[in-house]
């Protein structure tokens, strides 16, 4: 109700060129950058501070018990999911609800696959080896960062599921509004994937 009253909810502002939602999501992403930025800084701080040898030395290669193959697979999955996400938006832009929805479903499936691999094959494997976040600072930051990232993914899946299901009602009322929302979701999704693209090398490769 009040959404219709408020200016620039759907149409872009003539000066900024953005509708409110897009502006809002970008600001939100800016704060997310700071959140993950702080965690990346923590990673750097701890790694630089770690001694060369001894029990608190930074693990490398095999010592990390991380599988670069699984990590690489997950990276591929997330890149693909971003592509499907943007395709969904393009389809909605081209007024194609059915196709767009299909792409959204594909995105959600890929995201769930990512989380499944993360939990089933990576976390569980570590727990079987007796590795917990408390094992060392490396695993502490590994579990914290990937865990927080996985929560973001799950949050994204919930939002996408909403737009596949009940949220799609909006399509019939206001197509542009719906497409805008998909765009915002897409921006968030891209951000989350981008975080992974930074996480993957620093945790698995370096």
């Amino acid at each position, binding site marked *: *109700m*009040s*959404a*219709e*009253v*408020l*200016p*620039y909810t759907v149409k872009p*502002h003539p000066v*900024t060129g*953005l509708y*409110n939602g897009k*502006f*809002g999501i970008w*600001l*939100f992403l*800016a*704060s*997310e*950058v*700071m*959140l*993950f*930025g*702080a*965690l990346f*800084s*923590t990673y750097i*701080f*701890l790694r630089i*501070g*770690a001694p060369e040898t001894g*029990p*608190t030395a930074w693990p490398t290669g095999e010592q990390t018990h991380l599988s670069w193959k699984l990590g690489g697979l997950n990276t591929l999955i997330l890149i693909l999911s971003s592509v499907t996400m943007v395709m969904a938006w393009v389809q909605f832009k081209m007024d194609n609800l059915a196709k767009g929805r299909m792409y959204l479903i594909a995105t959600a499936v890929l995201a769930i696959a990512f989380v499944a691999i993360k939990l089933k094959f990576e976390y569980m494997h570590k727990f079987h080896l007796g590795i*917990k*976040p*408390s*094992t*060392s*600072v490396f*695993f*502490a*930051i590994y*579990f*914290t960062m990937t865990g*927080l990232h996985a929560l973001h993914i799950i949050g994204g899946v919930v939002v996408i599921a909403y737009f596949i299901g009940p949220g799609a009602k909006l399509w019939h009322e206001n197509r542009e509004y719906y497409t805008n929302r998909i765009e915002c979701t897409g921006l968030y999704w891209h951000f989350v994937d981008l975080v992974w693209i930074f996480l993957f090398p620093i945790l698995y490769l370096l």
Partner: protein
Amino acid sequence: MSGDHHHEPSFIRKYVFSVDHKVIGIQYGVTALCFLFLGFCLIMMMRWQLAYPGETMPIIGNLFGEAAMPGGVMLPEFYNSLGAMHGTIMIFLGVVPLLVGAFGNYVMPLQIGAPDMAFPKLNMLSYWSYFLGGVVMLASFFVPGGAANSGWTSYPPLSDIATTGQTWWLFGMVCLITSSLLGSVNFIVTIVQLRVEGLTMFRLPFFVWAQLITSFLLLLAFPPLEAAGVLQLMDRLAGTSFFLPEGLVVSGVVQTQISGGGSPILWQHLFWFLAHPEVYVLILPAMGMVAEIISINTRKPLWGYRAMIYSTIFLGFMSFIVWAHHMFMTGMGTKISAFFATTTMIISIPSVVILTAMVISLYQGAIRFTVPMLFALAFLPMFAIGGLTGLPLGLPASDIHLHDTYYVIGHFHYVVAPGTIFAIFAGIYHWFPKITGRTLNKTLGYIHFAFSFIFINIIFMPMFWQGMAGVSRRLYDQTVYAHGDAVQSLTVISSWGAWMLGLAQIPFIINFFISIKAGKKVSDNPWEATTLEWSAPSPPPHGNFATVPVVYRGPYEYSVPGASSDYIPQHITTEA
């Protein structure tokens, strides 16, 4: 607008889960005032222990049970809890929600002519997130071991090994941070997108500018604290050692269960990266309100309006690179210290500019000594003292002696207590007519002001002497030290000041509640002000403005030569 076809919403939709920025603003205001009062009660209790260490607290001493105050004598652990919670409640649950949540929410959309905030539902969510955070914080008093007791700064390893209250504190903080983040997104979008036609950025009232910069600070500074909070939660719940080095021996027990490898300094960096901008979050909106009130009551445009805006932007930017001046004593290298000391000196300049601009605005004005104006005027010298005493703390060499002493307490309280809180009172007296359509009683207001002003100085002025004498902060009983015992009489003065200040709020509380129902009815624009909020009816209806206003001029067109009245509101087309 939508007025003709919408039906009356239910009571809950209208007053509890409302999406109207005005209702949310009032919700914020009422909740935050309650918390402000609670935070003040905590310190009044602590002041008893400080003034009369180990003596039975009269009357209320026996209400707190064996774990906190056996026989009415405060225990050190309870004292520490009170200290930590006083800081947390005052900053995160009192002042920021009042300045940003209440005044920002209520006044800002009105000042820019918007019908509501850009995301009304998000606005509601941020209030309830704040409310939840507050409930968690309050509940933490009742968990075993009491509320968080590692100071509001929660330095690990102390906070890592602290009682359960600390975990609750962290959860509460996460809720509050979420609330602030959602709020700041909403504010920025609203200010940038929803300004009415003609209201360019440089026609915005200074208060709106202050809110904008504040929102940016909240948006960018809070997430690192959220990250730090998550890390500390991991330390406490999952047994990680982000902030714990190896080889700790706590109470004679070697901590073999932790892996070590972390650093206590890491927390300090993350924490102060937030907490220094937070200082400006506490002061900028207050400056904004004071600037508004000064301009209205001097009947004169604000002097150096643009310079003030540029200073504010600069201040906001600089506040991100001064954080380590809180850490001069952590053994940083001299080069890093020099860098942060330099940025600290630089950041003092925009503050000087803003303060100068405000005081020069008085020159050649026609000052009306209304109640809000008195509070706003009192803000200026109080903020000046607060700012000046920051100087010896910003220089590493003099900080050696003053760091973590009462001098620091005096310094930042002068900024936030007689400073910000006075600005808040000014704001309440100033916008009360807009919110209720009635004014607060003047006589009671003058009484409230005079006594508040006297007693608040009696509280904080002695702290500078105490700090010089070398009395550390957060001491349960300073008389164990010779240098502390020598200045114990100052503590007593300070404590009596605090209790008297408590009494001095009674006229305000009476005034507030009586005036809501029985205050003098006033017109929509009782102060003869120019900004848009005064063109709306009092109280403004849902949707705020009957017709969307259009703005033709800057915010402070007072005493324009040749005009018939001494003010021209922003939305008036031509002079009559």
